């Protein structure tokens, strides 16, 4: 199963940051994502995906020379299983990452949870990638996100359950409650509740920083 690259622009205020999400399926990224995987040592591997920010360094004489691209690691995201697909979702100006996990680390099961992560930002950069929720999948291979009637839907293609390829794929709704509060035609009461939630989240983040 190939790993997945996804480039995503995340808008924060007036700036747009580009991020590269690398899903490393069966690859020990702690070793800089190089080398080969030794099947006998699979149990010792830690499967990590990596989020990079991308930047282009301007050059003096365009277009004779193209800008050089640099990658800076923002964070590693440890996944309990082998991630094969990352998908970014934006809900009400909040950023999320969805991951499709294909199988567990020991190759013993395809019944593994895929997950939702929230990107928490502070001072214009990502401060934390926090797991929000998991949902069971069977050899998940792909996540497709789309919007229908203002509702964000997440479709997951399930590939294999360990004995059969005849497995159900699934469609989920994502952030329905949040969407109802920040979509078009929102009532004032919902706006107030949304503000209250944002304040709570800010307090929570502040407290986390203080603890650190």
């Amino acid at each position, binding site marked *: 199963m190939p790993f997945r690259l996804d480039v995503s622009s995340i808008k924060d205020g007036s700036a747009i940051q580009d991020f590269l999400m690398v899903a490393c399926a069966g690859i020990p990224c702690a070793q800089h994502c190089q080398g080969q995987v030794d099947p006998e040592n699979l149990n010792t591997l830690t499967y990590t995906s990596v989020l990079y920010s*991308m930047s282009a360094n301007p050059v003096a004489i365009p277009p004779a020379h193209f*800008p050089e691209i640099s990658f800076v690691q923002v964070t590693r995201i440890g996944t309990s299983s082998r991630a094969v697909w990352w998908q970014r979702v934006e809900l009400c100006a909040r950023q999320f990452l969805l991951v499709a996990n294909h199988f567990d680390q020991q190759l013993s099961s395809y019944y593994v949870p895929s997950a939702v992560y929230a990107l928490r930002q502070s001072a214009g950069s990502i401060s934390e990638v926090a797991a929000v929720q998991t949902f069971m999948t069977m050899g998940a291979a792909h996540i497709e996100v789309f919007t229908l*009637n203002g509702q964000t839907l997440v479709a997951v293609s399930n590939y294999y359950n360990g004995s059969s390829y005849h497995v159900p794929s699934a469609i989920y709704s994502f952030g329905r409650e949040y969407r109802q509060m920040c979509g078009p035609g929102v009532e004032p009461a919902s706006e107030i509740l949304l503000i209250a939630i944002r304040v709570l989240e800010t307090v929570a983040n502040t407290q986390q920083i203080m603890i650190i």
Partner: protein
Amino acid sequence: MLAHFANFISALIDFYMYAVLLLQEFETLGARSMAHFTFSKKRVLLVVAQEMGDLVSVMQWDYTSEQFLVIAEHTIRAPTHLVSWVAEQDSEIHGVGGYGFVSVASSTDNVAILRVDSQGNITRVHTLATGPAEALSVFKGHRLKDSVPYSVSPSERERCVMVAIRGHDSSEIHCSHQSSAEMGVGGGRWIRDFIVNTKKSGSLALVTLSGTRYMLSGNGWGSDMEVRCALVYSRDFCCFHPPDPINNLCSLLD
């Protein structure tokens, strides 16, 4: 204590507000990839590649039964990866609600270009002579001249599909060179324009930074148990950069 409480509240909010709730399940046979077309806010088609079923199926939300239903199926050998795009201007030309195109990679066959109309009817309009492919990426553009291989078309109607060839140290860029009349009928004439050294790429992505478009190739795909990840720390990760003009095609000026 306060921090724990704040964390608890934060987690509670996240769980409630961002809940992923199962809407429906549907039978698939080795589903590997999906794509979608948004024709309008209320009309979205979901395309599913079922590798083991040799099938590409199209689903649409049914407002009566309030679930997604399969409205069309098309037989393709071992479809794996999909990329889709909507030919927006076709609706103006043909007045039939628009077309979408989907490029389908196969683990055993060539890449196919399918045309899907807003009713879900599927027509195979082209075959790219690539052989089995590992990854696809699609972008708007066409070739202008050698020094600037591709640029976004003024009409934004031409499409190029980049195909990472399975087992080869190369990817290919195939572009449609079409007239207005051809677009709605068959997506134009597809021509292979470039071959890129991508070192057994397993994944492709496109990004535009500072007005320059880059292609990123996840090099090193071997097999399930012999995967080498991309060299993400260096330019080796990408297949662009001068001076080699052949490898320069990832610098796609907007």
